[in-house]
């Protein structure tokens, strides 16, 4: 196990060096000039050269890269060029949690919705629920995230009646369906019928309550987790970005889990569990989920890594002060290379470490792999 982790870490080094070197070369080529951004309109050529020398910008790319690398190894991320005195590490500390929160909330939402839906679709393969959910998933995959974001803003911010009545209608339909199943299963005994009717009442009550208390979601104005306005405000302001991020992932995860789960459900031990009279929920959650979750975990890891680096769009739509915003607006646009390099380095490290961790997690999921190693 330790050896596997060590190997992964060793492989991390060349990737990170290539990524950061490529970043500094790319930034060198970007036309923005950070010194002009500092001195503005008043400075003359003398000022320009002085600042250039002070910041070490008169040296070539490679020696600057080596300097930067030497500092990084000592844990010093340096200062922002365009805003002297502002530590890059502080900026990263401010922006990383925002990106992280959106990505995490998106992932949690995606898994919470996709796992039950995918499992149920696999269990009920070929039925109306399966076809409807698979078709919807296929459609959702084809909605680009920026379009999804605008669509959500359009519906939740400008026309909140749409999701509100949508939820109300769907909830009432569900509760009616539950009542219908009570009628269809009227020979199952009084206890079952009672549970179903109770479920129908609860569902109807919850949807009416939700539609009544429908919260309004802000388009912009992110409230930090640590701010005085409280956690609830933070969650409310992060809700739309998180849903935007989650939407595609829900669909992808669902399709994947459904496919794998359907294969698992053909196994003999599932049949024997069924024959013993285990309820389907228990079979799906206890017996079938673990062996079916390999591809899901791989993909979830890749997706999470991508989300950390790829929330630029969501940050642009909802004006979030995140990493993407920092790297693009404060970094690339002004040629502020410490910001870009450190930001990209963090994102890339996160991505590679995450993928390595997933590789290693396989052996926890499947005992057979443990012995093979």
């Amino acid at each position, binding site marked *: 196990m330790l050896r596997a982790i060590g190997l992964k870490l060793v492989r991390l080094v*060349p*990737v990170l060096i*290539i*990524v950061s070197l*490529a*970043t500094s070369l*790319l*930034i060198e*080529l*970007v*036309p923005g000039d950070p010194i002009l951004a500092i001195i503005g309109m008043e400075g003359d050529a003398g000022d320009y050269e002085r600042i250039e020398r002070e910041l070490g910008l008169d040296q070539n790319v490679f020696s600057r890269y080596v300097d930067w690398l030497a500092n990084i190894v000592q844990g010093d991320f340096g200062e922002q060029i365009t805003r002297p005195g502002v530590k890059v590490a502080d900026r990263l500390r401010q922006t990383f949690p925002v990106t992280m929160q959106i990505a995490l909330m998106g992932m949690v939402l995606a898994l919470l919705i996709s796992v039950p839906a995918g499992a149920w679709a696999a269990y009920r*393969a*070929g039925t109306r629920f*399966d*076809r409807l959910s*698979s078709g919807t998933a*296929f*459609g959702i*995959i*084809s*909605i*680009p*995230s*920026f*379009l999804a974001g*605008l*669509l959500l*803003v*359009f*519906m939740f911010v*400008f*026309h909140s*009646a*749409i999701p509100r*009545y949508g939820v109300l209608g769907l909830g009432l339909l569900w509760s009616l369906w539950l009542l219908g199943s009570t009628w269809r299963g009227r020979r199952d005994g009084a206890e079952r019928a009672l549970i179903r009717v109770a479920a129908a009442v609860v569902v109807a009550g919850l949807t009416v309550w939700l539609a009544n208390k429908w919260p309004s979601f802000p*388009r912009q104005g992110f409230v930090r987790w640590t701010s005085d306005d409280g956690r609830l405000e933070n969650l409310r302001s992060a809700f739309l970005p998180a849903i935007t991020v989650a939407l595609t992932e829900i669909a992808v995860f669902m*399709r*994947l889990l459904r*496919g*794998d789960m*359907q*294969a698992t459900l053909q196994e003999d031990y599932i049949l024997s569990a069924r024959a013993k009279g285990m309820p389907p929920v228990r079979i799906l959650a206890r017996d079938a989920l673990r062996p079916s979750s390999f591809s899901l975990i791989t993909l979830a890891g890749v997706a999470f890594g*991508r989300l950390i*680096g*790829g929330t*630029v*769009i969501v940050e*642009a*739509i909802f004006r979030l002060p995140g990493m*993407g915003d920092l*790297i*693009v607006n404060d970094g*690339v*646009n002004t040629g502020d290379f410490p910001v*870009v390099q450190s930001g*990209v380095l963090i*994102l*890339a490290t996160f*991505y*590679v470490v995450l993928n390595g961790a997933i590789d290693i997690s396989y052996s926890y999921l499947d005992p057979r792999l443990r012995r093979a190693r």
Partner: protein
Amino acid sequence: MVEVSAPPDAPERVEIADPEPGRRSRSLVEGATRSGVGAALLLVQLKVLYDSTAWLQVAASLIGFYLVVTGLSLLIRAMFGTRVEPATWLSVAWLGVLLVFVFLQLAGLFDNLTADFANREQPPQFSAHEPLGTDRVGKSVMNQAIQGARVSLVVGIGSVGIGLAVGTIVGLVAGYYRGPAEGTFNILTDSILAFPALILLFTIVAIFGGSVLVVTLALSMLSIPTMGRLARANTLTFAAREFVTAARAMGASNGRILFREILPNVALPLASYAVIIVAVVIVAEASLSFLGVGIDPISTPTWGNMISEGRQQSVLKDAPHIVFVPGVLMFLTVLSLNRVGESLRVLWDPRESKL
């Protein structure tokens, strides 16, 4: 990962002699009614409801779209038998329609992009001069959307073409020779893929400017490692097969084994993935344009450029069609490419579809 698009009982329904003679005509009638009602709903949505409440419009379009698609599917099934997949053929049809419009545009139609400030932010109306409305300065949304389709297709097909050509060769070599070639290949592809994609694209466009050519080349930078990895993985499995050993035993050169024995086996699965990656690239190009760092919006309208108007509060609120017309076109195109790619994969990639 297996896509079981047909319900499991579908094969049983492939009947040679129709045991139930009334069913075909019944589903013909039902399909025709459904698609008719759906089309009517969409028309009503555009003609009558264009200034009514938004939720009514959205509901009408969704139901109309659903009815049209399911109705056409029923019709296709009834006419060509249950073995065909209606969704795939509908997708092919949509891509065909798009291509026809692109060629019409190349032939000089849909060219007019003059601003007509008096008629700005006109909603879509079938009877009007501009059936899909006008944008914030009064340019025709329809003409822009069709020109945007041209850009999307050129960028998508161009960069995936490059990615397919280069990636296949690199992946073949890495997967066949193994050793240092494979090691270098792995580290390089890891590096490119670990780099946040949008930031890479953003930087390249910032350096070289936002022309169609630059964006195409920049996106091919991303499709090369993707296609290369797939090519390598496929090569690995085929290089261990008996026919390769047999060819080597007969004295075939490495080049011959690579290009005459392995490549033909690898090419088709890769091509089916390439179709899906075209969709990904179209989305990526539009994302760049959406962020305002893609293809220059003044000279070349693209779908992403059009949709990025929606970042302004007022556009999304008062003239949502500026966003949703290109949005729907893009959605349908990406959906169709995904669908076609998926079907081709089931057809061409025996390894995956066997499961």
